[in-house]
């Protein structure tokens, strides 16, 4: 974490907690992504479907967000693949 992010981390952390309440309430109805801007940072949430979990990135407001989004999506797909394999190993039905 950069020193700049560290300084506003407490505020972002509190705001993120509130966002996770929304994710918990709506992920089962198809909520896929959320983002908010706080001071000079943007916080991106990539939600794992039907869970209360999300992949989170805190990026400077001037960042090239389009390219970051592509790699966030790749990370989400990788994690979902691993979660699917773990569920399969435990004998939990994995949706096609």
């Amino acid at each position, binding site marked *: 974490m950069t020193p700049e992010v560290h300084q506003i981390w407490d505020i972002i952390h509190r705001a993120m907690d509130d966002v996770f309440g929304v994710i918990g309430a709506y992920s089962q109805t198809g909520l896929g*992504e959320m983002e908010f801007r706080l001071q000079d940072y943007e916080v991106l949430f*990539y939600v794992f479907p039907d869970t209360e979990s999300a992949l989170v990135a805190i990026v400077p*407001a*001037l960042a*090239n*967000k*389009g*390219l*970051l*989004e*592509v*790699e*966030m*999506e*790749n990370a989400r*797909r990788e994690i979902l693949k691993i979660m699917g394999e773990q569920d399969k190993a435990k004998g939990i039905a994995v949706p096609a």
Partner: protein
Amino acid sequence: MVESKIEAAVGMSRKWDAREAGREVARSTIEKLNSPPNFVLLFSTIHYEKYGGFQEFLNGVWDVLPDDIPLIGGTVTGFTNNYGCYARGATALAVSYPYMDVTVGHGRNTKRNPRKAAQQCAQIIKRGLKYSNYKNKFLLNLISSAETPNIPIIGRKKIIRSGAVTKVIMQLFGFSQYVLQKGYGRDDEVIEEMIKHLPDYSMLGGGTVDDGTGLTNYQFINKNVLTNSVVSLGIRTQCNLDVLTSHNMKKTGINFKITKTSKDGRIIHEINGKPAASELIRLLDWPPDLLKDETWFNTTYYFPLGFQINSNKITDVGPRVIVGIYGDSLITTIRSKYPDASILTIDGKRLLETIDHNLESYLHQPKFGLIASCATRLITMGDKVYQSRDRILKYFGDNPFIVFYVGGESTYSPQKGLTFITTSFNSALFWE
């Protein structure tokens, strides 16, 4: 049914270390072929500059690749292939086909003397394919794109409105362009000259770039890493091929006249007889402070300028993105040749539909394909670029393709002529 003799394969690497990535991208590509490839095309994001460097990346490729296989490539903002969409990593396409002659060429100092660089490159291609009798001719041109000069104190801002600072920049611009070779890509001039020398070739072109910052970019030819150069792959083959550019931009109905430009037409000083930037903002009915570095990607990329492409077809309009505003002048990368211009626009739906408009015009299923797409399409679509990949897969099935995201794209064929624009989707498809 006659069995196809074309073998094509796409490989990739997501490793961080340059040498390891080079080895993996080469291995994962050629291991899918039964015979040695006629050529390899290699695309990489800029990241390896900081993780070992591009010479080390190429060394890794040649640790695996058999000697003497023609190779060209360069740095791109990202890529889409059969496996996914990526803003970091490397990908390659290799083709093996018995009825094909291949050569590679290059020309240096494209920013200082683009026509001379193109002549050098075209001569090498001509010599290399002199004895080939195959009737279909194809050229892939990768040209170093614009690089932002780093002017002390000012840095690399896209918008500088101060009149005094702008005067200094304009004076330093020429020095930077010709001496330091930091400035416009002049890739449109390279392509025009290539066409003069090789008019019966179909061509696909793209400007090598970095991750959108416009600081630096590289070209690859065989075992060498170049800067400020054009690298070309020339093919003569029995295999059928065609090229096509699509942009699907919508006209806003806002038209204007370009009334004063720089000598080369890349800086627009006045439109409708008024200072260009202020007049553009007025025409768009935007608040004067809307255009700033923070909002750059979300404003200008969706509203490119529409320039007349052809002298006798006023309706033939192509998009050009604005790359900067200095003082009250608009900086573009492609020369404006005619006064009539307009403001175009596009949304996500139309960005995706461009792909169908382009690929459904081909009547044959491709055996492999190369697509030069504007980096702005990747940046504006973000993770939705996966929807564009789904559409492309409909046309290619399991057959290999690479979409490489570049700056300043073009196609040329003797039948269709040259289209050199930005924010577009440009295909070169091959079938038997």
